[in-house]
């Protein structure tokens, strides 16, 4: 048969590299490996932090020491050795770039390779970008334009220096350092991240975007993002991630806090494409992230994520629907291939009356991967007339991967309406045949069908992100049907 068999295809793709697996050759400033109070003091002093923040860190560190790693997720991995990680790595001479020209050319090249050349972005899309390489934020564009509107969008470190009161007021209020093992670790050692504040009644006119990248070897990335939308404000925030290809497992333990005050709306989109490890499961990023948003009255938070990367993912972007009539949404596509493991989902905590949540999760498992949806819908006593709708679908591409669904539904209010549906099946043979009959190759057909299957989620992404996400899906699934 003259057919290009799946096996041949798989072989061809086996050697296909992770597109973002390059290392940027910039001089990096690091501190000694390991973790103790002195390291934390060192990080804090390097960042010239106020005393309250150092205290916050030390406090978190003490808490962390008493905690143990969570083990309830449906993932298996060798626990990171926390004393072998470097907790601070910064591209040298990062001190405040006065202008775009001051930025290290190597770094610019990195950004170009990532497809996020700032210049391009500026010109074409009007997206404001903050770029966090390793632990330090290197460039934020469009700052002045945003400033006119009173919007603050800067690196977390800068925010600590420039707007300490705002940071102090909100940081850790949604995810306390006691929340979980990785949140505690992050609170102790976080080095940078993004900060965003949209003042009352302001609609942020452009998408704000941060690109995270781990570059240096042996480091962990612990960034912190805090987005506050004041009353009636609106912002759409994008986050993208990549990392070089390394044999070791790198740790990424981020914390993202969103606060949507009365009538505010935050749309938070992530395309997560950390290095997933090679086809034998060697290397790759451990992505242990805590993300949570709080909605006051009539506010709305919408999480959209496309997860294709990381060796192990543990992540549940959540919404606390505290205010009456607040709305939480979670749209997720999680693709796992080879030996990737993902345990991801959301928590919707309904506290206020007439609160509404929607969960759309599309899992796609290929290779030897394990892909789990884990979610909690909790309706509290006073959450009258609250609604939840969840749809969790899993698509299986091979007979040696796994797809799992673990929803928790807890209801204490009789006027609430909760609907959860889940399906698991294989990619439709009939659909594949139909496409092929129309002249579409198997690989294109899979990509087409999978993209269609994820449409509801991809539709939530801003245009340019959606295109990137579709490409990523195609790359992640190449040669995956078995």
């Amino acid at each position: 048969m003259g057919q290009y068999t799946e096996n041949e295809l798989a072989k061809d793709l086996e050697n296909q590299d992770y597109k973002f697996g390059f290392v940027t050759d910039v001089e990096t400033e690091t501190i000694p490996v390991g973790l103790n109070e002195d390291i934390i003091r060192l990080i804090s002093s390097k960042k010239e932090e106020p005393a309250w923040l150092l205290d916050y860190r030390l406090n978190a560190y003490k808490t962390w020491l008493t905690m143990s790693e969570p083990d309830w997720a449906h993932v298996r991995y060798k626990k990171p050795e926390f004393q072998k990680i470097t907790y601070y790595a910064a591209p040298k001479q990062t001190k405040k770039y006065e202008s775009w020209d001051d930025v290290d050319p190597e770094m610019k090249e990195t950004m170009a390779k990532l497809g996020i050349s700032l210049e391009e972005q500026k010109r074409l899309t009007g997206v404001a970008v903050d770029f966090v390489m390793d632990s330090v934020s290197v460039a934020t564009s469009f700052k002045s334009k945003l400033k006119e509107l009173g919007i603050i969008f800067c690196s977390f470190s800068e925010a600590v220096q420039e707007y300490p009161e705002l940071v102090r007021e909100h940081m850790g209020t949604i995810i306390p350092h006691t929340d979980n093992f990785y949140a505690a670790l992050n609170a102790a050692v976080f080095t940078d991240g993004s900060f965003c504040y949209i003042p009352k009644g302001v609609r942020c006119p452009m998408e704000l975007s941060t690109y995270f990248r781990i570059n240096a070897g042996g480091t962990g990335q612990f960034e912190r993002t805090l987005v506050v939308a004041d009353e009636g404000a609106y912002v759409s925030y994008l986050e993208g991630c990549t990392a070089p290809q390394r044999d070791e497992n790198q740790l990424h333990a981020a914390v993202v806090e969103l606060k949507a005050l009365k009538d505010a709306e935050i749309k938070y989109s992530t395309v997560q494409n950390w290095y997933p490890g090679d086809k034998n499961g060697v290397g790759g990023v451990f992505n242990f992230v805590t993300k949570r948003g709080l909605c006051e009255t009539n506010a709305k938070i919408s999480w959209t994520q496309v997860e294709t990367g990381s060796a192990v993912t543990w992540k549940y972007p959540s919404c606390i629907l505290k205010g009456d009539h607040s709305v939480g949404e979670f749209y997720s596509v999680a693709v796992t291939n080879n030996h990737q493991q993902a345990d991801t989902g959301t928590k919707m905590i309904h506290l206020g009356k007439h609160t509404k949540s929607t969960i759309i999760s599309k899992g796609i498992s290929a290779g030897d991967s394990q892909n789990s949806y884990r979610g909690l819908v909790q309706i509290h006593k006073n959450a009258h007339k609250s609604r939840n709708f969840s749809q969790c679908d899993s698509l299986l591409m091979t007979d040696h991967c796994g797809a799992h669904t673990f929803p928790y539904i807890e209801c204490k209010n009789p006027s609430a309406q909760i609907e959860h549906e889940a399906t698991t099946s294989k990619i439709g043979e009939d659909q594949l045949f139909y496409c092929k009959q129309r002249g579409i190759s198997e690989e294109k057909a899979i990509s087409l069908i999978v993209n269609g299957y994820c449409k509801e989620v991809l539709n939530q992404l801003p245009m340019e992100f959606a295109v990137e996400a579709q490409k990523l899906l195609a790359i992640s699934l190449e040669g995956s049907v078995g």
Partner: protein
Amino acid sequence: MIEIKNLHANIEGKEILKGLTLTVNAGEVHAIMGPNGAGKSTLASILAGREEYEITEGEVTFEGADLLDLSTEERAHLGLFLAFQYPVEIPGVSNVNFLRTAINETREAKGEDPISAKEFMAMVREKSKIVELDSKLASRSVNEGFSGGEKKRNEIFQMAMLNPKLAVLDETDSGLDIDALRIVANGVNTLKSADNASIVITHYQRLLDYIVPDFVHVLHDGKIVKTGNKDLALELEEKGYDWIKEETQVG
């Protein structure tokens, strides 16, 4: 155009086609009729390259190529089109996107450049008129939530867009109301030319009033047991299949 010789095929160990022979030349319309379960859809599926069937004997030449040696999409690239008896739904994939991918994949296979967006949209507009397909349907997901009749019309719309050499229409008339039947038939007739051909599988003589066949074949028990002109269809309509079944048993 296509030459099917002594085709035998099994599914799950059961023989469905038992020595089927049929030749279709350019410019011809062939109708295939036959009782339920005779193997009509099986023939269509095998021509299109569905892998569940095992071909145990026979050969098929299409446009000079050994059809059975080609993959499904290669057959499509050569200009073979199957209008499915049960068109499948593909949620989230818009008709337009689907067709553009199909056209470009075919063009790529032929070493041609992809179709420009403008040209493509113009074509969509032109061809959807032929089957009087609501333009809204073109932007909806492939067949998703389409009524039975809309699905069938969409098949003909796709056929118009892909402009095949040989179209196999598997019961495209079933489930159509009178108007839709006329529209679909009209579509098929409009697309008819001296360089292409079609095989129309149907149960009803009615369709053949609109699409006048050059030949009518009766498929029974995995073989073509009788061939005639359009009058044969009328005779079948009147007398059913029993007399043919008897005839073949005697033979």
